[in-house]
């Protein structure tokens, strides 16, 4: 997947990743954390947000506006590949902390869709059911599986 991305770092168990967003708002540490939440089927939760450099805690309620939304999402997508290389191509569940944030994820996926769909199946939840991802459709949550 030939996406522009930031250099990224991982814990030695490949469950937590970090990288730095660089832009007009400065250098902001981003973190991606994967947590197994079911065994049949195997599903992992993807938690993504800014890491407070003082407390180390994650927060995704901040709107960073660092003019790099697609690079940030691409880097998150790359962490999915790294995670799957280690743990297998299981389902990964992701949603924003708010409807606005989830919509931002949807817009980013749509913007990168031609590249993302090469490597990933993506499903979105709407109208009480899971559907294959389509551009210009609003979803409440996403499921991703590497092909």
């Amino acid at each position, binding site marked *: 997947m030939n996406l522009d991305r930031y*250099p990224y770092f991982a814990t030695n168990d490949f*469950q*937590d*990743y970090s990288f730095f967003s660089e832009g007009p708002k*400065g250098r902001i540490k981003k973190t991606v954390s994967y947590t197994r*939440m079911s065994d049949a*089927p195997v599903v992992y939760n993807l938690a993504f947000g800014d890491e407070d450099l003082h407390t180390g805690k994650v927060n995704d309620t901040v709107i960073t506006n660092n003019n*790099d939304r697609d690079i940030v999402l691409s880097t998150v997508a790359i*962490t999915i590949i790294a995670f799957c290389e280690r743990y297998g191509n299981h389902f990964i569940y992701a949603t924003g902390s708010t409807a606005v944030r989830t919509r931002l994820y949807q817009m980013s996926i749509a913007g990168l869709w031609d590249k993302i769909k090469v490597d990933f199946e993506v499903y979105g939840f709407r109208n009480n059911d899971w559907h294959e991802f389509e551009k210009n459709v609003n979803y409440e949550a996403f499921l991703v599986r590497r092909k």
Partner: protein
Amino acid sequence: MATNKTQRIILKGYSAPIISDTVKSHADDPYVLDKVAKAKEFLRKHPIPQHILKK
């Protein structure tokens, strides 16, 4: 006048991550725990349908 410029380093495509002690586990982070609890509840109410599981 001081400026707060940062240099954006962009790479292309996949390569394995760099393992670093500066990356912390967030397994016990309240934000992550809350997200996982909500995700479990969401998938309990809205399980992945068979046609997607079998794909």
